[in-house]
């Protein structure tokens, strides 16, 4: 049986009158030691999916199985790195990590806990900033504190919710390398949610597309058969990389266009506007169509996303 598993999970928000169906029929299996990336549009329900995996939200239907337990509540064994870092602003870097360490390892001595906390602050290269408050840190540093806090709990699975989404490209690249290094060193099970297919392919063993909402669902999982650790500079030239990228993006685009339909409706407009100059000019370019008034347009076709 898989280590972390979703079976037929559906989720929506709001009462029946103002309902948004967010996720529908999600099936997912993650094995121990695997790095799975889920790629999807923003607003499609990625954070909702992650909250369900972390146990913060209970799915409206379907099952979450984790390490043999049926739909367990949240806990430190599923370490979630929040999309917006969620550091406690009144605590320093060290204290934010220590809060987690003190809670998860109550049996260790004070000295051991201090040492453990320091180790994880050092792991994300934040020892020089250990006594700073979050508002004194850059976005990338805050994200690293958030990662350190979660890793320090030594979770069985690491859940990363668009961890690098708010960062600039250079910081993002550095942190991608850090995540990759930590993951390989600790043989950590990781679920990464991202809106960047390149990031997913760079880091993951398997990429799963999440279609656009409402009623977003997971597509087929696409294995990334490239050796780890991967080098972003050579990766982009690799034929396999391009192939996988094509497959992921192609699936997302296709799934989205299926959602699109067209709506036609008749328009009744008063005949008070002048002739449309833009249409008039067509005459000079050989179409021969006479100029027309906007009020002559009797129907309108718009593309809508459902």
């Amino acid at each position, binding site marked *: 049986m898989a280590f972390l598993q979703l079976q037929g999970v559906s989720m929506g928000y709001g009462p029946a009158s103002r309902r948004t169906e967010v996720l529908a029929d999600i099936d997912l299996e993650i094995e121990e030691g695997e790095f799975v990336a889920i790629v999807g549009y923003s607003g499609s329900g990625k954070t909702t999916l992650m*909250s369900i995996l*972390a146990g*913060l939200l209970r799915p409206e239907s379907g099952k979450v199985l984790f390490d043999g337990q049926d739909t367990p*509540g*949240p*806990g*430190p064994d*599923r*370490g*979630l790195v*929040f999309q*917006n870092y*969620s550091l*406690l*602003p*009144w605590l320093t870097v060290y204290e934010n990590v220590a*809060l*987690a360490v003190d*809670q*998860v390892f109550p049996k260790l001595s004070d000295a051991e806990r201090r040492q453990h906390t320091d180790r994880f602050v050092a792991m994300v290269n934040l020892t020089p900033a250990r006594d700073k*408050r979050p*508002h004194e840190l850059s976005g990338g540093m805050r994200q690293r504190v958030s990662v350190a806090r979660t890793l320090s*709990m030594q979770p069985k699975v690491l859940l990363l919710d668009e961890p690098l989404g708010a960062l600039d490209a250079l910081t993002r690249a550095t942190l991608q390398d850090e995540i990759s290094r930590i993951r390989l060193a600790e043989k950590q099970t990781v679920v990464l949610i991202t809106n960047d297919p390149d990031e997913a392919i760079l880091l993951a063993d398997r990429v799963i597309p999440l279609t656009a909402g409402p009623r977003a669902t997971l597509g087929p999982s696409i294995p990334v058969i490239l050796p780890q650790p991967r080098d972003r500079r050579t990766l982009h030239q690799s034929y396999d990389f391009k192939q996988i990228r094509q497959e992921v993006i192609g699936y997302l685009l296709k799934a989205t266009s299926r959602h699109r339909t067209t709506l036609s409706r008749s328009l009744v407009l008063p005949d008070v506007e002048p002739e449309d100059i833009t249409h008039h000019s067509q005459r000079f370019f050989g179409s021969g169509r006479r100029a027309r008034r906007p009020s002559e347009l009797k129907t309108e076709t718009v593309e809508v996303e459902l």
Partner: protein
Amino acid sequence: MKNQWHRFDFILLPVLGGIFILLLWHISSHTWSGDLPDPAKTWHESKPYVLDPWGKRGELDQGILRFTLLSLGLVAKGYAIALILGTPIGFCLGLSPTFTKIFDPIIQILRPVSPLAWLPLGMVLFAKIKGINITEIAALFTIALCSMWPTVLNTAVGVRAIPTDYLNVARVLKLSRWKTLTRVMIPATLPYMFTGFRLSLGIAWLVIVAAEMLTGRPGVGGFLWQQYNALVYEQIILCILTIGGTGFILDRLMSVIERRFKTA
């Protein structure tokens, strides 16, 4: 040349305002308001109280700082009661919609009641309890009841405004209820709580004057009322200035504290 003057604006302009009011006061006392002592007379009669601020010649004849300290002492006690009761009530309101539904209407009705109305109730309420100073207890009751509301309401708003993410952090860490309260909820609410504390202190200081007047307790307000009843009008203005100045200083002190917690 012009810029030279602008540099002293911060002191010159307020002084100008003061002179204007003094002038208005002087003219009023010599024209349409015959009973109002003019500034010079007021100062002359107030001198003993100001120049010997710690003097004590009788229960209601003491130096002005001595009176202020007496009033402040009473305010401190009433204010402490208000905070000790108001903060937990605010937390309950913020945490529990049921609690809010039960008590919010009552709070909304009690909140606008004037201290002048609470004080007689306090006197009646504690009249049968032996071994207490009834006027002091009634005054404390009034101060606490009137000044509690900003603390209650701001704390409740602060608790409701705690970001869900902070609570989710507590859930992922499996913090106990007690630890969630002390390590996450209280720190997250502190800025709101301190805004409430500052407003409450302002009200407590407003109420003290009324409470002292009604009970005749020694203090700035009691002194003011006694002098008025004795037809000695010179010290009324001294008392008003003292009350205003003290209130201003208290408010400044509280905003300094409040700002420290805002950045947290």
